[in-house]
């Protein structure tokens, strides 16, 4: 079914959704910040 194939093709073309070094940097920074908060919260718990 050509219509479905075109839609699938359009969808797959959107992957990966974001692919850039800047995004990776920001994402990892956010990741580290959140883990740091968790770490600090563990200290608070103790």
């Amino acid at each position: 079914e050509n219509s479905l194939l075109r839609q699938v093709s359009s969808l797959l073309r959107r992957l990966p959704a974001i692919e850039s070094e800047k995004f990776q940097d920001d994402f990892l920074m956010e990741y580290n910040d959140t883990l740091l908060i968790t770490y600090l919260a563990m200290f608070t718990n103790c």
Partner: protein
Amino acid sequence: SSDAIFYYDETAQAKFQQDRPWVNDPHYFRRVKISALALLKMVVHARSGGTIEVMGLMQGKTDGDAIIVMDAFALPVEGTETRVNAQADAYEYMVDYSQTNKQAGRLENVVGWYHSHPGYGCWLSGIDVSTQMLNQQFQEPFLAVVIDPTRTVSAGKVEVGAFRTYPEGYKPPDEPVSEYQTIPLNKIEDFGVHCKQYYALDITYFKSSLDCHLLDLLWNKYWVNTLSSSPLLGNGDYVAGQISDLADKLEQAENQLAHSRFGLLIAPPQRKKEEESQLAKITRDSAKITVEQVHGLMSQVIKDILFNSIRR
């Protein structure tokens, strides 16, 4: 049968108004049923106010010990916590709205008011308590609903509370412990002074069959927006405020601990328990902040794996 709740029996309501069973029992109303439509409107209105408190009125009816909220409408006032009677600015609007509603065939009366507490939880402040007491004197049956739109976003569920105040001078019997919520340090006094003057009602929700269908359609339309949003990014200011508040509370607890260092040897057991529970509260608050952050991060990581790790 799910739509039967929407039927308004004017005769029964008039009779209920005449009987006034709440006069003899300050605890008469115990339950609140809020319609999906009213809840959506209230939450959207509260969220639109950002960090400013907004308020509105609720329309509905009563059913035994339950107040049923069918609809809600916003009032053109803001900053309800900064003035003694913010409602006064909107009296004309309220009257016009109610009259127009009746002309349009809307029979429900105003059964309560709602306002928002952006970021500081669902409870009644001193001003709220005095407003509600006044309302309950002259406009019974009347309900107070508080919505926290900021915590709604960070917790991922609607933070809402429904309250009714006790009459002046009434001493309530010991209430069961309500669900714990974090109160910021700058509001804790206001909370503590008035928390015994009102009680919380159990909230349930209902929707019509048409509401179900419409909400399903809305979900199909907006699931992408829901998936794309992240509480980590959208609620950054609120989280920073929470952490700062936690630090203040920790400092306060530490100071109290330091002052009572020698007092500990001769301190009565109650004080020790109080300090423990203060630290326990701080621990619970920090765990809550952490869990919300971890949830936000988990959703980001899952989205990254699902949508960014596929290479064509």
